């Protein structure tokens, strides 16, 4: 097999890890609160700026900066829910989607206002690992491993804790859960916080690989929605599988053609699959 193709496939798998993590967060929010956060990728952007400022400008140690970013974005998630989603929870779902679209405009332009449009790098270059003739970036490998750890942690949280069980129950039947004595508002807040924390974790992983700028959310935001819908909105395992399919299309497409065409292919694949499997790839 062609060595560069193999490299493309491996890079695709590594990219899939981070995308899967983001899709997981978005899926959780959709499954539980029944809202699509269009601005989800822009929360990641906020987290990346936090890391950039704390680590590169103020000289904090990286783990501490990352921890602050995760907690900060989780708090932002709670704020988003309280200020934007909660007041219109009862109205048509498309309104909630559009309201978070307003948030997207706000976050992107506010970041432009504060930081300008320059690309900023936190200035860490992790070494490239050589496996025979294949080169793998260790930043990507680390991101992939951390994303898997995050996903597994989320799994155990949902399966083994009381509040996790309540979250899963609400995703199944919104009305009955209330009768069982679960406080829906509290669950929504916890879910928003977890969704935010996952975005914060993704920010830590992406900050190692990409420069941060106000519009970075636009580059992978649409991809995450595609992945969620492809997997079936609310279906975590489907989303996880879809993340790797999409990342392979992008990676292998990029190898045979160029980056833009591979994205065109990914989006076209999404549109076609929407018509073939409208409820998600794993659902018949």
């Amino acid at each position: 097999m062609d060595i560069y193709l193999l490299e493309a496939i491996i890079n695709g798998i590594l990219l899939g890890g981070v995308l899967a993590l983001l899709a997981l967060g978005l899926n959780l929010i959709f499954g539980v609160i029944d809202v699509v956060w269009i601005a989800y990728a822009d929360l990641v952007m906020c987290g990346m700026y936090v890391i950039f400022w704390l680590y590169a400008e103020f000289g904090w140690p990286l783990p501490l900066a990352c921890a602050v970013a995760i907690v900060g974005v989780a708090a932002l998630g709670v704020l988003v829910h309280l200020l934007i989603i909660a007041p219109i929870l009862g109205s048509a779902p498309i309104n909630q989607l559009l309201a978070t679209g307003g948030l997207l405009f706000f976050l992107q332009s506010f970041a432009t206002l504060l930081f300008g449009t320059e690309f900023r790098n936190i200035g860490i270059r992790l070494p490239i690992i050589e496996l025979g003739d294949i080169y793998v970036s260790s930043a990507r490998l680390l991101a992939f491993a951390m994303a898997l750890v995050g996903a597994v942690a989320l799994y155990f949280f949902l399966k083994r804790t009381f509040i996790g069980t309540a979250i899963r129950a609400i995703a199944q039947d919104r009305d009955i859960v209330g009768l069982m004595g679960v406080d829906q508002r509290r669950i929504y807040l916890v879910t928003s916080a977890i969704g935010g924390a996952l975005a914060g974790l993704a920010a830590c992983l992406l900050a190692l690989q990409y420069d941060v700028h106000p519009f970075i959310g636009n580059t992978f935001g649409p991809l995450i929605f595609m992945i969620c819908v492809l997997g079936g909105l609310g279906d975590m395992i489907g989303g996880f599988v879809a993340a790797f399919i999409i990342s392979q299309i992008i990676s292998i497409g990029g190898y045979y053609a160029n980056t833009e065409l591979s994205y065109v292919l990914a989006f076209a694949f999404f549109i076609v699959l929407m018509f073939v499997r409208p409820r998600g790839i794993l659902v018949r």
Partner: protein
Amino acid sequence: MSARYATLVGWLGILIALPFFTPPYFMHLLIQILLWSFVYSAWSIMGRFGFVSLGHGAFMGVGAYVPALLWNYYDVTPWVGIPLGVVLSALLGLVIGYPCFRLKVVGHYFALVTLALGQVVMLSIVAARDITGGSLGFTPKAVGHSWFALQFPEKVYFYAISLALWLGGLAVWRWIDRGIGREALDAISEDEEAAAAIGINVMREKLRVTVISAALTALGGAIYGQYLMYLNPETVSGIGVSLQIVFAAIVGGMYAMLGPTVGALLTISLNEGLRVGFGTSFIGAANTIYGVLLILCIIFMPRGIVGMLQNMTFRRRRTKAVPAE
């Protein structure tokens, strides 16, 4: 009724007279407001019936790029190129609309499918950079004042064109609003199954508004390209444009005929006002305020500014009418 017509004629007179005593800068603003009003109205023709598309940039992009490419490479006049772009865009609407409506892809799902469509068109333009110039943009060959090339350095011509376009858009809106299809569409957006049960051809009605909306959006994009003489995939068909279309229409009020126009007037003057007032050092300020405005608008007045004003006058009329009874 005659008083209403008099005010209508009066407003029209003002709009026609404006170019004779406005400086070029304001002409430029007016042209932009009229053109964007037209595009926002075109989006609302679909949006008001609950088909929220986040991918109208796709139609605008096709409409803008097809005539420009034909003109530069084959010397085809925009008089042929623009209709071609419009037809292609309508076909694109048909191709994406038919399976969506057949398979009942609605709400979130419809929004996200159209979002993907916008990305496909935008990224295709970027990917074909040998022909389209990619993200650096594309400049149609300039030939000076020419009816054949539809290029006019003087702003008056484009003012007239965009005014005509805008009025045409409102006429289409009124035509749909008055037609029998409107009630069918209202019924569909309320309850699709029930609408089908009473004999409404759901598919045909939905496709009709989709195709009209796509075609008009493409026309708007084409004239916008002819006017600016510069196309860029991000500014003509990116996610940013698609969302800008949706939000301006919502802020203005997508259920009222003049709602999208009010949306364009408000957002463009806000943008320009902040740009002139604060200069480039305050880049992003307009959109920051705009974003907050949007969130507030969707939370507190989902029918937009015009919708809210209508509600208020309606209520006042009703309270007045009660003692008379």
